[in-house]
């Protein structure tokens, strides 16, 4: 039994980190912003925490708080030039931002260790810390989704012109989405640093942002549970596909295409929508029978 726990503990830890990054990605998508900049903010947070904790002996909690703040400021600054962009243009512009961060990390090798990565980071974060961080994040995500901010995000995602004519400032709420997404990415980037001993620039590159997008596409954009489901699928799927050995990636790809084709809202959001329709239909039937 204990063996089983030890075998799967790293998997669980990575799942928890994935949930954190998934929420960062969801925050922008929920507001209708197609930003994939989370990877860049995660990188900034990760390198900042690694450098100040290892080289300057800063307290880990203080370092994580500053990393979160850096993510906020980064999100705020990035939102200004991108305010007029939408959809695929936003995606490309934020991808460029991610590439800039990756290349800066490679370039300033005295500070970051360059392509060799930044190693021997003290391991100060374990499963319980990650779990606590994710639970706190879930609380915030729930609170925000039930607030006027969450409703404004939902409205802008579905039709931003309608949102604007109802008093929602597009620029302001897109900025809030960028800031919150940056904060989450910066914080969990820092957590990852203190968990993995070493980081390297490409960890927060293209693969990272595709993974973050995948959690949300699989799980769902509009609910708090969606990203958890998405991250869970992506963590468990490679394990389940293990017997397929060399064909693993192939089958994983097929499965994802099938899921996206048949559940375009994501597994969890799709389920919620489906149940909602069924309940509405059932109530209609009752109403008609009564009259």
């Amino acid at each position, binding site marked *: 039994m204990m063996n089983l726990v030890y075998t799967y503990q790293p998997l669980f830890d990575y799942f928890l980190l994935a949930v954190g990054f998934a929420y960062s990605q969801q925050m922008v998508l929920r507001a209708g912003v197609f930003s994939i900049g989370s990877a860049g903010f995660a990188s900034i947070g990760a390198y900042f925490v690694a450098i100040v904790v290892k080289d300057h002996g800063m307290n880990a909690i203080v370092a994580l708080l500053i990393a979160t703040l850096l993510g906020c400021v980064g999100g705020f600054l990035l939102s200004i030039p991108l305010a007029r962009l939408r959809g695929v243009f936003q995606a490309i512009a934020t991808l460029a931002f991610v590439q800039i961060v990756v290349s800066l990390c490679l370039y300033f090798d005295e500070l970051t260790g360059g392509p060799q990565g930044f190693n021997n980071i003290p391991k100060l974060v374990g499963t319980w810390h990650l779990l606590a961080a994710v639970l706190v994040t879930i*609380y*915030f995500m729930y*609170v*925000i989704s*039930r*607030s*006027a*901010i969450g*409703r*404004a995000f*939902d*409205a802008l995602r*579905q*039709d931003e*012109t*309608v*949102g*604007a*004519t*109802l*008093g*929602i*400032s*597009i620029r302001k709420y897109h900025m*809030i989405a960028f800031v*919150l997404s940056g904060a989450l990415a910066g914080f969990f980037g820092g957590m990852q640093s203190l968990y993995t001993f070493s980081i390297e620039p490409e960890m927060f590159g293209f693969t990272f942002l595709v993974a973050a997008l995948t959690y949300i596409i699989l799980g769902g954009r*509009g609910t708090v549970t969606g990203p958890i489901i998405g991250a869970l699928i992506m963590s468990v799927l490679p394990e389940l596909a293990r017997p397929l050995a060399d064909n693993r990636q192939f089958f994983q790809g097929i499965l994802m295409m099938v899921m996206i084709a048949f559940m375009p*809202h994501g597994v969890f959001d799709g389920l919620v*929508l489906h149940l*909602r*329709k069924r*309940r*509405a239909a059932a*109530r209609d039937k009752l*109403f008609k029978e009564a009259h």
Partner: protein
Amino acid sequence: MASLVLSNVSKRFGGLLAVSDVNMEVPPGKITGLIGPNGAGKTTVVNMITGLLKLTTGSIKLGDRDISEAEAHEVAFAGVSRTFQNIRLLPEATVLENVVIGFHVHVRSSLFAQLVGLPSSVRETPKLFERGRQLLERFGMSRYADHPAGGLAYGHQRRVEMMRAVATDPKILLLDEPVAGMNDVEATELGDVFKELAASGIGLLLIEHNIRFVNQLCEQVYVLDSGAMIASGTPQEVMHNPAVVAAYLGTKK
């Protein structure tokens, strides 16, 4: 209550003068009509009032306040609300959620309270949903509260859009072809709703094709053709105006 006043409003798209020198007043508590053939520029006028399009020249005032340069969300806060010619609901959201988003201008809890879940924000949400239910009750739509809005029948979708606009508690309500595609019975029902809204002090601007419908409801009618205001007055005056007849039916050779 405040009137909405347009003075010498023009809009130019490149070389095309879409709206030229329009003067118009929408007083509170009354239904004012804006009619005109297809492509006359009616929706452009509405888009300029609501801040979706910038004016080329002229000014728009709500009471004493100049809203010519205001952005869409500022116009909403100033007290102007609208419906769209092609219905625009939030399709994934339920009917009730669609109405509740209309309360956005009434949210009192601060951003900070919303972010960290202070009681002021947590308690506000159920209150707004309760107000949403009352509004649904008033429009006879309670049984659809939890339906996804995108799946409703056309006439019901129109009502949801109307409720959402009314939820902002507007001083001025702009209705862009609200009875398009409805039969006379449905239109008359909706007309009664408009009369009630006007009686409650809201100034309504009714943009319509259906001249009979406008005649039933409006005291003052403006006629737009090719971007210019060609006539205004009571429905009777306007209907007998040769320019209006020509615009709608063409001229005799």
